[in-house]
């Protein structure tokens, strides 16, 4: 059973794409657990399986074998409808691109998960989130009228607004210039520090990863190391090791 301190956990996760000759082991028996109220980064070279780990843990994709828990719920036992409900209630997402519905305003995008669930937004919380991301005056703009950084902050606010157990972010700053990227990470950091939010982020940007509480390193579908309280120098050193 997962300990109380973990928001999500994977046990012996295996994910195989393709068949026979074209078989690719994207995850090769991975066991990880993400601590509640912490900001975890996952790093690794292209094709190391970091995105697959994220998708499977988030319930967007199925494992070939192994188990995943979010909170106390084991995902393998859920049907599509329950899985959808779980995502709606307990999981938030921030993607690299195509995060927002282009036809909706920023505000409508932020409260979309709540509208989908046909609930009333918690206005006080909404105000607080919006204040934190600093987009109060851009709420009625369409995504096309926002900069890339602003769009990602809207996406982050959307993930935060339904108070999920855990937020998964897939290269959230990958498409941003360094200044916007830093702003977004500031915001994620504050969400963890001030609101106690759990965040798991996949990235290959070492400065982004260094803002996390812990970094997990993945290579060839295996967990190859962990680094608590990283600094940017530590991360660069570590990457240099893998490079060799």
């Amino acid at each position, binding site marked *: 059973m997962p300990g109380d301190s973990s928001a999500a956990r994977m046990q012996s996760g295996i994910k195989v794409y393709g068949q026979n000759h074209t078989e690719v082991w994207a995850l090769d028996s991975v066991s990880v657990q993400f601590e509640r109220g912490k900001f975890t980064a996952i790093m690794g070279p292209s094709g190391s399986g970091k995105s697959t780990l994220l998708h499977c843990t988030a319930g967007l994709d199925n494992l070939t074998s192994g188990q995943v828990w979010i909170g106390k719920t084991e995902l393998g036992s859920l049907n599509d409808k329950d899985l959808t409900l779980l995502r709606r209630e307990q999981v938030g*997402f921030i993607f690299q691109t195509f995060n927002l519905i282009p036809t909706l305003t920023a505000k409508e995008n932020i409260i979309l998960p709540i509208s989908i669930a046909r609930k009333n937004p918690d206005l006080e919380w909404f105000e607080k989130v919006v204040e934190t991301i600093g987009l109060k005056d851009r709420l009625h703009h369409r995504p096309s009228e926002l900069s890339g950084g602003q769009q990602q902050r809207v996406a982050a606010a959307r993930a935060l607004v339904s108070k999920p157990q855990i937020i998964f972010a897939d290269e959230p700053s990958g498409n941003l210039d360094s200044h916007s990227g830093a702003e977004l990470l500031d915001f994620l950091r504050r969400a963890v520090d001030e609101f106690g939010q759990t965040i798991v982020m996949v990235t290959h940007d070492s400065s982004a990863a260094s803002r996390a509480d812990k970094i997990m390193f993945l290579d060839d579908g295996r967990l190859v190391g962990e680094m608590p309280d990283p600094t940017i120098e530590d991360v660069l050193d570590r990457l240099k090791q893998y490079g060799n």
Partner: protein
Amino acid sequence: MIRVTLKGILAHKLRLALTALSVMIGVAFISGTFIFTDTIDRTFSDLFDNAFSGQDVIVQSETEFNVGFQGPPPFDQSLLDTVLAVPGVAAAEGRAGGFAIIYNKDGDAIVPMGPPTLGSSLSIDDHLLGAAELRAGRAPKGLGEVAIDARTAKDNQLDVGDQIQIQTVTGVSYYQLVGIIGFGATDNLAGATFAGFDLESAQKLFALEGRLSSIQVLAEEGIGSRTLRDRIALAVPEGIEAVTASDEAADQAEALSENLGFIQIVLLVFGAISVFVASFIIQNTFRIIVRQRQRELALLRSIGATGIQVVLMVIAEATVIGIISSAIGIGLGFGFASLITFVMTLGGFELPATTAPLAMRTVLIGGLTGIAVTVLSAIFPALRASRIPPVAALRDVDVRLKRSERARTMLGVISLVAGTAIVLSGLFTNVEVGPINELIAVGIGATIVFLAVSLLSTNIVKPLISLLVLPLLRLDPVAARLASQNSIRQPRRTATTASALMVGLALVATFFVLGDSIKATTGRAIEQSLRADYLVSVDGFGGGFSPLLSEELDASDEIAATTSLRFGFWDLDGSEELLVGIEAETVEATIFLDVKHGSLSDLAAGGVFVHEKTADRSGWKVGTSIPMGFSTTGLQQVEIVGIYGEQNIVQSAFLVGLDFYKENFQGFGTDADVTVAVKAVDGVPAEKSRAVVEKAAINYSNARVRDQAESREYQESRIDIVLGIFNALLALAVLIALFGITNTLSLSVFERTREIGLLRAVGMNRRKVRRMIRWESIMVAALGALLGISIGIFFGVAITAALSRFGITAISIPLTQILSLLIVGVIVGLIAAVIPARRASRLNVLEAISYE
């Protein structure tokens, strides 16, 4: 979620517009038909209310059933005294009527298409005149004076003081025009021409001396029309009835509306075809939309939208489009109704320019059809949307949620077989399953066949397109190759787009085959069965000319024989049948009837001849008595005295002798000949005999003289007119299909923005890009045309074969006309490509390749 839906619709206005347009046209067609028929109904009820206004009771001969303008037979005028003696009658006047054809200043008959040429005496008492009132001049007095309706006067520049010719059953004479008559607010009675005389003259002109057609009665003050009706009913002898004027008005209006009911059915069928074609386009649009919005839908799924919510979202979008386009469609229905009215006016029908108000039924049927079709067409794409996995938001997954191709092929084959079976059983057997009769069975079967071919054509898109592209590859190798590959890429999409065009062109081809077969049949019939040298007949529907014409010919030395033909409707166990009254004494010389049993002398003596196919089907033989219900004389048992095989000249399955006809058909129009077949004396040169016939007919200018070749041409031209009308109506279906190709291509261009940008980046110029889109469009259209032509030939041959029991014995496929449909297909493709090709060629290269 509703908000996501609505905003999604508003963000894609062109897509919305094109999809909505296809629904709109169908809905406009259907609601316009209802508005139009409502207008007709209202016109007739207004008309007869007018005609009978002011009167209380009508006394006339009792009839078995009402046949529109053909009034009841006359009775002895002594009845007027009986009616006048009834207490409570304030005034009563007899009326005598018959057909009266007014001639214009050039001596040509003024014959409206459809509405009758009415002649009647005018009542002296103002109240008994109905809505008729003198607009100018005075009432006619004595033989030789006439008043005519204002519309006829206006259209032909006739005025009080003019000398005009009028033809009645007793011949053509000159009259002094002394008065112009209006009917309340309108200038004529639903398009009918009207000539009014005084009673004594009318009796003479209409050969009704001592007799009356009806008696108009005015009640004394304080006496209700029903009360008076009951009193008169007690006083009059058997065979005469008294009805209130308002009942009679309603009866006549209803009878006339029923006569025009077939127009409603024809228009609704074509409306249904438009809607059916539109459904292909809606389905395709949604399929493409779902594909294009794959990432957006996946994003919604990943942040917690359930599959059902996604389905509902797509359905909601369909519903909104359905509602908007139905609403606009119903509005356009008024325009469509006005258009039909206008076309009918061109054809000579007189209809008011103002349309009837919108009835609830129109809104319901039109609206529900539009919404239902849109939503139903979106269901499969919606289900497909719900199967998009949330991961699709993160990576480019190929969501080929294919129902297995085998399953689709199986379904296609099964429905093709079933549909064909239903069509054939509808055509060749008597279907009677609940409300489903032969006609509906053929319709359902044809629909299934179209759907099946649409499904199956997915499989043949690839080979057919590969074949179609061959000649183009020489012409334009690069663009044509890319175009063909693009159209093969999504075979289901291409097949659906082509199918929309297929439906319209298939039906056109069906009518071509059918029309050509009918032409061939009548041509053969005229060659083989028409012994007469000339046919003298009236054009259009209804009406006739005075029997004096044939009498005059009979008296001529150059003419060997004339045979008069008249038409009448009668009732066979509740269904209306047509019969022809024919001069049995002379028919042997003029028309080869192919008598199988019995003799013509028995026909002259009374009794009925039945066509062999009808007799076979009903198990009748010579000697069988059949129940014939006549409007005038009621039900009679009539003995079959002969069986005949000719059907295309006499155009009826029942023949009676002319004397029998005159006994049982009395009243308006039955005293005129519709056709006279004329045989010249052998050896008389054609110029001479023709001159004799023309001279006899000259006074009856509604009578046309045609020799055999001209008769054949005339029959062909009549078929061409009907074909023309049907094809014009089907043109709408083809137009909708054209929108469909435009829509699909526009969406495809949008979908391939990056690809087109890439082509441009590597050096393809704008013209080539345009050509690429154009070739694709033409190939899709040609595919639809080929499929449509194949189905059309099959349907045409099947229907023609089924019609053999109605005498259509030749099967003929007009190759030139059919091939012209292929050209129509290519033109449709060219036009459909204009907008998408321009869009594609104007893409900004840089934006296109960086487009996300």
